[in-house]
């Protein structure tokens, strides 16, 4: 597995109400060399000053309320098209289809495969900065 070759000023924001899982993803991102911010809820994220600076979002779907998808919609409405990755303990093809149709980049299930997650984050960051990093 290659080391992360992407710049470290990218900010990855993680939103999950489960503290252990949230911290574990943050730790993983840090070990890849990213800067990370973790939030316990969508509300906490939206009220943080770094909303516009986030290059990639990793959000828990939070079945069955599906607040993860709602957050993405809200951000799109507000004009922040932050590439979003959804993670969920729940497996549901219809929800996945809906999420992907909404413009969400990836839908991963817990426990997540590290390679898959890394691939998702890479493509998310490519999308965030199209001019400089697309080859």
């Amino acid at each position, binding site marked *: 597995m290659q080391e992360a070759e992407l710049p470290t000023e990218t900010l990855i924001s993680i939103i999950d109400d*489960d503290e*252990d*899982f949230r*911290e*574990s*993803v943050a*730790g*993983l991102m*840090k*070990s*890849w060399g990213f800067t990370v911010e973790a939030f316990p809820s969508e509300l906490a994220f939206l009220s943080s000053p770094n909303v516009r600076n986030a290059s990639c979002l990793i959000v828990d779907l939070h079945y*069955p*309320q599906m607040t993860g998808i709602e957050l993405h919609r809200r951000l799109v409405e507000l004009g922040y098209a932050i590439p979003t990755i959804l993670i969920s*303990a*729940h497996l549901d093809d219809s929800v996945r289809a809906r999420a992907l149709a909404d413009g969400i980049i990836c839908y991963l299930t*817990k*426990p*997540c495969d*590290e390679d898959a997650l890394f691939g998702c984050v890479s493509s998310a960051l490519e999308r965030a900065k199209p001019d400089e990093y697309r080859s």
Partner: protein
Amino acid sequence: MAALFVVALVLLWLRQRSVLDLWLMLVLCAYIIEIALTAFPIPYRFSVGWYAGRVYGVLSGSLVLLILMKEVTMLYGELLRAVLAQRREREVRLLTGDAVAATVAHEIKQPLSAMTNYASTGLRWLDRATPNIDEAKAALQQIVNNGHRMGAVIDNIRTLFKTEARTRTSLDVNNLIREALALVRYDLQTHRVAVQTDYNQSLPPIEGNEVQLQQVLVNLITNAIDSMATEDGDRVLSLRSKVYDSGSLMVSVEDVGKGVEPSAIDLIFKPQFTTKVHGMGMGLSICRSIIEAHGGQLWVTANLPRGAIFHFTLPAHRQH
């Protein structure tokens, strides 16, 4: 012949066991009178007394038949009701089991996923040119912690199942409502929902499973909170308890939120309906099953100018 009937009558009188015995005695009386009447000498036949006797015979016979029919029909009704109630209880228990299984799966996946993440993290930290031992150790420690957390979840599974679906106690519905409100107090505050209550002080006690009825109330209240979450203006949740009729009481949960589409009024109680199901994911279909297993009904009406009112009835506890 008449002597036989008289003997039977006396025996029945001495050994009365049920309502049927009384009515059989009546019929036997009629037969005896009938026999006595047929023994009337010719001139006295067709006299008023004779007719009275015959009429009495017909009437008592018909009466016994009608009583029998009524008793049998009532018995069938009770039997059907018991079978349906039993079926609902089983349904509730299965649905509760399914909800518990979903919760357990979810609760286990969290620490499990954290563990795999930390393991990958540890590997990454060690896989560098200069391995970061401290970070790797921290990651390994977190694996231990999450392992313990999983152990605790598994230990608690049986407690989760111990929502004794069968224990029923005498309950005060007003108290149930107060406790449900206390359980969701934080939710109410966060969403700035004002609560109005209107308790009927002379409510009869009901017999039910406290945990299940609590779940129903909490579910209805959180649904109400959710429906108002996206609305502007005042958010008011109203809870009312009142006597419904001579044998039951009614609770109403009223909100001023999005309301329910007229076309969806029955749809929302179906098990497959998944939108906006809050908390433990109980769902309105389980709520309805629980209420019906208790002998009541759950339905929704529109609140004017906007919102919805969920009503449920429960039979009063009959003292045996």
